[in-house]
């Protein structure tokens, strides 16, 4: 069944306006600084429609850094559940992808995908701002392809 005009407009809006919220699940702060760096005027992610939001209720993309510690495990789950559908998760940095050097530690449950589903992985220690922006663009391209496939 082909999509009608309004569904297409919403699909287009989703591709053009990804609002992010940043969550530190137990990172060493290296990746967090790179995420903040990606939001500075130098990289100007607003040209892609990206805006940082304060509350998970307004966000579409959850940008997670760090291996998930047992302390943040439940909080991460809560924040993910507070976000309205449709939502996406970016794992920024090696620790967020797999657990990194903290994998198997007594207080760490592993990468972000050990708790919530992840849509894009950005490896790197720390991940560069260019890599983060590239991942967002790739996520949006993949979203466009899946929307076209559903049409």
């Amino acid at each position: 069944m082909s999509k009608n005009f309004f569904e297409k407009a919403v699909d287009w809006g989703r591709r053009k306006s990804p609002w992010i919220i940043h969550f530190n699940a137990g990172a060493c702060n290296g990746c967090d600084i790179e995420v903040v760096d990606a939001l500075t005027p130098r990289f100007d992610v607003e040209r892609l429609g990206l805006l940082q939001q304060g509350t998970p209720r307004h966000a579409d993309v959850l940008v997670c850094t760090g291996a998930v510690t047992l302390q943040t495990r439940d909080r991460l789950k809560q924040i993910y559940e507070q976000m309205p559908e449709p939502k996406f998760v970016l794992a920024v940095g090696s620790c967020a992808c797999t657990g990194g050097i903290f994998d198997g530690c007594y207080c760490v449950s592993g990468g972000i995908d050990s708790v919530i589903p992840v849509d894009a992985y950005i490896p790197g220690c720390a991940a560069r701002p260019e890599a983060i922006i590239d991942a967002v663009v790739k996520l949006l391209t993949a979203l466009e392809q899946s929307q076209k496939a559903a049409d």
Partner: protein
Amino acid sequence: MLMALFNIVIFPGLLFLGIYALFFAFLDRKLYARLQNRVGPPWFQPLADFCKLLGKETIIPQGADRRVFVSLPVFALAAVTTAFIYVPIWSVNSLFPFEGDLIVVLYLLTIPTLCFFLGGWYSTSLYATIGAVRALTQLFSYEVPLFMAMLAPAILAETWSISGISAYYAEHPLYILINIPAFLVAMVACQGKLERVPFDLPEAETEIVSGTFVEYSGRLFAIFKMAIDCELVVVSALIAAIFLPFHAANPWLGFLYFIIKTVIILILLCLFRASMARVRIEQMLMFCWKILTPLAIIQIIINLLVRGALA
């Protein structure tokens, strides 16, 4: 009947106001970005945001009163749209001018702020409650100088209707120079009304997440955002009508003048926003009551004296 429906839904009602508000939101964000040496968002950005929010899931908190929570954004948007009908657009006259419409418009523009307060209050979230209380505290500080600054030109023109004021200053263009302090006071105070940067305390993303709107998501948040964007248009149109009364007899030319005037006001507001940082709530109260209000009172006294001298 058909004409009234056209006025409400298409021009100058919801549709025109909505499109113009999206354009204003874009211009505001683009200018802000350029002032920060950035490229800024593309022209369709506010529309894309609006479409996306309409398609998102709407979550209503468990503790919130469902009916009030859902109806508040609509109330805010309706009040702003109603206020726009009484603001002159293409000529000196608005659509339905009457004696006292200045007061009606000012009070209609207070309703969105009260909706933000109630929305935050009914969200039963801690951050939203703090934001709501701040919105109300702020209301009591900027509202007084804003009202006095808007009423000072009315005293000189001896009329309480926006159209009457516009017509008076169109006849005596030099008198607008007397109102320059009131113009400045109105520009500063309306930043508080629009919850823009030096006075965006109720939203304050970095400290109280996003204040009154914390629990609003999806469609309801889209309507709230639309109400805020529309309020920006209505307030700049109101300031343009009162303080910049340059009109043309031809309605098309008058409409062009309207766009030029409101864009100039938006540029000034944006410059103001880009050059300031957020103040604390008590700093804002001090500033509004100790500087803006006396300035507005002095303006009223000057206008009364000028009125007496002219009589």
